[in-house]
């Protein structure tokens, strides 16, 4: 006896798998196009810095560098290196998200929302780190401000922000929906 209705339709099986593959492709793309990602990240940083300063701000896209304090006595340039970008911090989330969708297709939408929000948080955390660095350089000068901002406070923001993004991702992706 064949129970046709019990067989899963192709749509229910295929699209979460395709989505999982898409997330893996996105993860790989972040590695391949990390330079382009860093450029966008620095353009965003340039826009944010110019909101807080009356001095000139310039983004050198080709070098993934933002110059600020232009016109002042202490102009400074910050380059987004592969070690400082948020691109690679997004990778684990994308990989875990892909695994979760592949293993439990019914939570695909929930995982995607969780991914979107936690990835935005990670990007914002890196922007906050840059803004803090710019603020410290402006306040304490190039040497002290840069080293304090880049090492201690920068690391603290990365760790705390990373923890917040992870908790947010796990909470949003796994929380039980109330049955109406």
């Amino acid at each position: 006896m064949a129970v046709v209705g019990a067989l899963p339709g192709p749509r229910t099986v295929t699209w979460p798998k395709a989505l999982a593959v898409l997330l893996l492709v996105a993860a790989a793309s972040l590695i391949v196009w990390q330079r382009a990602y860093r450029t966008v990240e620095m353009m965003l940083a340039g826009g944010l810095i110019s909101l807080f300063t009356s001095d000139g701000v310039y983004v050198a896209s080709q070098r993934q560098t933002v110059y600020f304090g232009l016109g002042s006595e202490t102009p400074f340039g910050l380059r987004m290196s592969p070690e400082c970008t948020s691109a690679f911090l997004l990778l684990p989330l994308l990989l875990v998200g892909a695994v979760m969708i592949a293993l439990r297709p019914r939570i695909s939408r929930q995982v995607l929302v969780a991914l979107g929000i936690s990835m935005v948080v990670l990007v914002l955390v890196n922007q906050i780190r840059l803004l803090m660095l710019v603020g410290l350089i402006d306040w304490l000068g190039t040497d002290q401000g840069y080293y304090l901002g880049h090492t201690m406070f920068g690391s603290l923001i990365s760790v705390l922000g990373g923890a917040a993004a992870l908790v947010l991702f796990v909470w949003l992706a796994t929380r039980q929906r109330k049955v109406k």
Partner: protein
Amino acid sequence: MSLPVLLGLTQALALTMSVAFLTYVCLIVVPYLRHTPDTPGDPDDFDWHFLVPCRDEETVVGGTVRYLLDSFPRAHIWVIDDDSEDTTAAVVDDIASDESRVHLVRRHRPNARTGKGDALNAAYRDLRSTLGSDVDGDRTIVVVVDADGRPAANCLEVCAAEHLFGDETIGAVQIDVWMSNRGTLQPGSSRLGKRFGAGLVRMQDLEFRTAIAAIQMSRGLTGTISMGGNGQFTRLTALEAIADENGPWRGALLEDFELGVHLLTAGWRTGFTRDTHVAQEGLYSLRRFLSQRTRWGQGTMQCARYVRRIWDSTHLSTLGAAEMLYYLAQPWLQLLGTLVYPIPFLLLGMRAMGDPNEVWSWFADGAWILFAVYGAFGLLPFLIWGPIYRARCEPSVGRLRSIGYGFAYAVYIYTFYITSWRALYRLARRRNGWVKTRRNTERAVTVDH
């Protein structure tokens, strides 16, 4: 891939894994520290059957059986002799001749020595046929105890509590595990060997009573409390529900965790309690300790085959399934860690060899803070368990010594990076046999397969 990209990638992976672990530790500490004892129940509401699997256990089994008889006057004790080459069977037979509550289940090669799960299944079948079909399986509790195990005298009252077997949805309960020989020096070894052995046992005691207990208590929230083999209580109806033609235990080296997976995916809930404990001998020998942990690591790797079953189960929440996936991923993450963590240091070393002055001025000008921050985040998740051990388990330990325990625990945990690689090697060579960990009093190596 260029060196800066490789550096950025490995740093990001290392940061994510460290932050994930740090966050996890913060989350599990809270329920552990907030725990208060629960009201015990009436053990007379249940029938209790202890299963004691033995293979060459003549040095310890007699004492264990007598302890169980004295401590639990209504309980039955089923000793499984897995074709021992010593006098284990004779020791138990001798006690059984005077005591009807002691039952000896004998196994013989080629059907013996095929794993702890098979040995427990043999006892389960004997128990099942002895009890007959009229037995009230809901009121019958099967307890697995190691041959050197000493369940605390209050364990039946605690497990009979309303929130444990008093709740009919609970299929199994795991109790806390202590090391009976903590603070005891190993006789016969050198002074240095004694101190090292005592330290190793202390670390095992600390690990089980703090970190593992905290993980189990947090699993109460995710609904994924796992079984630990020793001090493992299971309701007979739960065992019946998951049994196949051989019995409820399957063939993985981590047969206790595997049993828990089958119970949880069948819809049973599991419990854990710190209100009672089972004491077992901690290992003094680093070699034996590494063998034991290799077996556990390999068992965890074997249980990866249950990932699909766990995620398909409608009885497990996504959070629960994610927690179990994280647990099953641990040996693999440790393998990844041994590859990823050294890369930034190697690249830094290469740069330092090329231009030592530049790297030194970079380090002295402020990069040392970076190392201090990451060092602190790497150490703190382990370090905290020392003072917590003093606060919650062993108040007689001095404050400074407890901090020392925390540092020692960090070193102790790093042995898992070794055992995970050994486990992978054994898995790749298809060496899936049961490597019995020798007791401290045994001399001969007993290795199967």
